[in-house]
């Protein structure tokens, strides 16, 4: 029995290695979302401090749009921010910001500093709307169709490749009523 404790480290490592192996085959950016093709949850949020347009479920009906979940405490959000700024400038598709679990002053300072790409923003201070959306990590980006249904979801920071090969094609497909792959 005494030698058991000498075996313990290698046993622990075996578990870690097994999990890492499974982890390799998981793609952190793909998840099955129960909400795909479902209408967005019912919500109505005030805007981030200093901005005028809030975000509610009815605002997502009428045209194809993106909802980007962000927070000032999220370092990875900084990485995708320039792409959102570019989208905002080009006006290809409206991008709405869902500010997840953030302090109002931090969120507004963050947008002042890095720029505000969002058409509308919603301050989800306690994170309730995020939970209804099935957000598990920030940043996340949802593609919403013209009927206000969630068509696609992207987990993690968007890269240019994600944008060009996944998000924008999905937007184009939704607009032309073609089949959406994402």
């Amino acid at each position, binding site marked *: 029995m*005494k030698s058991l404790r*000498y075996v313990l480290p290698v046993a622990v*490592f075996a578990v870690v290695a097994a999990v890492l192996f499974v982890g390799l085959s998981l793609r952190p950016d793909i998840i099955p979302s129960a909400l795909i093709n479902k209408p967005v949850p019912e919500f109505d949020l005030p805007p981030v401090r200093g901005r005028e347009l809030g975000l509610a479920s009815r605002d997502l009906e009428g045209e194809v749009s993106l909802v980007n979940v962000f927070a000032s405490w999220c370092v990875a959000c900084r990485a995708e921010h320039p792409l959102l700024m570019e989208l905002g400038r080009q006006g290809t598709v409206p991008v709405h910001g869902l500010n997840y679990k953030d302090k109002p*002053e931090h969120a507004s300072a963050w947008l002042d500093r890095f720029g505000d790409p969002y058409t509308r923003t919603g301050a989800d201070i306690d994170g309730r709307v995020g939970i209804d959306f099935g957000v*598990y990590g920030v940043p996340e980006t949802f593609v919403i169709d013209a009927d206000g249904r969630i068509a696609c979801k992207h987990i993690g920071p968007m890269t240019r490749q994600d944008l060009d090969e996944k998000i924008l094609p999905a937007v184009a497909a939704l607009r032309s009523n073609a089949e959406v792959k994402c």
Partner: protein
Amino acid sequence: MIAEIGHFALILALLVALVQGTLPVLGAWRGNDAWVALARPASAMFFVLVAIAFGCLTEAFVVSDFSVATVASNSHSAKPMLYKVTGVWGNHEGSLLLWILILSAFSFLVAQFGGNLPPGLRARVLSVLGLVGVGFLLFILLTSNPFERLDPAPLDGRGLNPLLQDPGLAFHPPFLYLGYVGLSVSFAFAVAALIEGRVDPAWARWVRPWTLVAWCFLTLGIALGSWWAYYELGWGGWWFWDPVENASFMPWLAATALVHSAIVVERRDALKSWTILLAIIAFSLSLLGTFLVRSGVLNSVHAFATDPTRGVFILGFLIVVVGGSLTLFATRAPALKAGGMFAPISREASLVLNNLLLATAAGTVLLGTLYPLFLDALTGMKVTVGPPYFNSVFIPLFTPVVVAVAIGPLLSWKRDDLLGVLGRLKMVLAATVIAALATWYWLGDGPVLAVLGMALTVWLGGGALFEYADRIKLFRAPAGESWRRARNLPRSAYGMTVAHLGLALTIMGITVSGAWQDEKLQVMRPGETVRVGAYDATFKGAERVAGPNYSALRGTFEITRDGRPVTVLYPETRTYDTSAMDTTEAAIRPTPLSDLYVVIGEPDGQGGYATRIYYKPLVSWIWIGSLFMVFGGALSISDRRHRVGAPSRRRRSVAAAGTA
């Protein structure tokens, strides 16, 4: 041509590493002296060949040879020369090559200065290092060749990630790698000892300086990295519990524990199998860090471009190295003879407590880093673990460590009386209580944790100074006697005092800068003034300026105190030509007492700019304290007992390595 020479040198290095990894250890087993003797020339050859490869890659970066894929995707002709050179390791392939270069340099140093090691032990240690080298060389040659050519070559490169174009970030990876790879030496000693089935105080005397060298570099690397995050990320924060930061922090915790447990092996011939295990764990955590950063299993902004085949390879390597060494541990460690016994209250016991807590802390960080992955693998659920988890778990674990650090050095070996020691510490205890009460009184509505932080600062700092005063009998013996004692105190004793004081200073910096900082976020127009701390900051205006490969928005802020001018600060937001990413260059006025930290952001379109101004008292002491720790480690390395019997050239080199 140059790139092909580099590639060829790497292939030759692989063959030499294979020889170094197999023949000496077999020779030590079979009693073949010629094979044992092969270790030294092989390690020299290994180092020279890798250095040639590294030189070739550096040349490709310096002359901007964009036919080399690594250069084309990570450099740019307009980049300043400094960042062309540091760009060599600012990418996946080059950083791996730097890793191997450092590994080969360490193995070369062990071979050169290990003259007084028993030949069998030296051969085994060098073989283990050679085998680690084989693994990394296979990795680089099979999955990440830095010398891959592009045809046709692009006209210009894609540039370096602008965040990396910064002195702090450019220089911290080499220090971190010196730390990570330095731990491979402790690891090699541990595995060699398991193969030999023998651990004695002489072994510990050999392992400790190498571990200390690795620990010093790791401390320096982490401090530089956190300093970079402080001034570059523009949020005034200095630690984010990002997976990549955790990857460097876990081996640091394990190495800290190892540095302490090796003392017990050396002095008391106890804790042997635990020390061996720690040496294995410390290096395993460095490798795990590499895996996490490069395999893409965790999301992090620090992560290099990831590639699943690389992940599979590193995992395989991890299983061979960590799984193999832990299996060896499971079979051989029970045979290690237990050494000196000790009572529950003794210096040994306090070091055991320190070790257990540090190991638990490392385990906690590991759990927090891997938990999202665990949950995902087991249930498919996705979660993120943020700073709240780490702060709430780490502080309760680290508090008893700090409490024990003040007591441990006062305890005697084998057996002591805790109440007696606490009685001797009564002045320190009183000062601690006063500090806690004073903090509580002045704190106002600040965080309550500041009370704990200040109490720990005074307790630890006071304890370290008391222990030193106690040793030299300050005020209890004539001044001449104290002076004589102070001069005769071994350098390792000074090293310990300085390092423990450094920890106290770091805790002080963390506590004070967090509790008493003043933060102002606002839109400012030229001419407006904002008061932060005791200072007034007047915004004079902003202009566009051009840099070598970026353009920047530069603001001008006049800082005054009670109407008297103090300084002028110029924060910038830079936009790099080759990347859509902006970087902040916070303007910081650091003084020992406080930092003023000014950031300028986007214009609001009506003549105003978003600005953030922080007043952070004593924040520099976070890093000054780290430098104290590094200096303490270097003092300890230079202790006489590590030099006795060693050739004189070793003395110089170790001292140089410690202060580098």
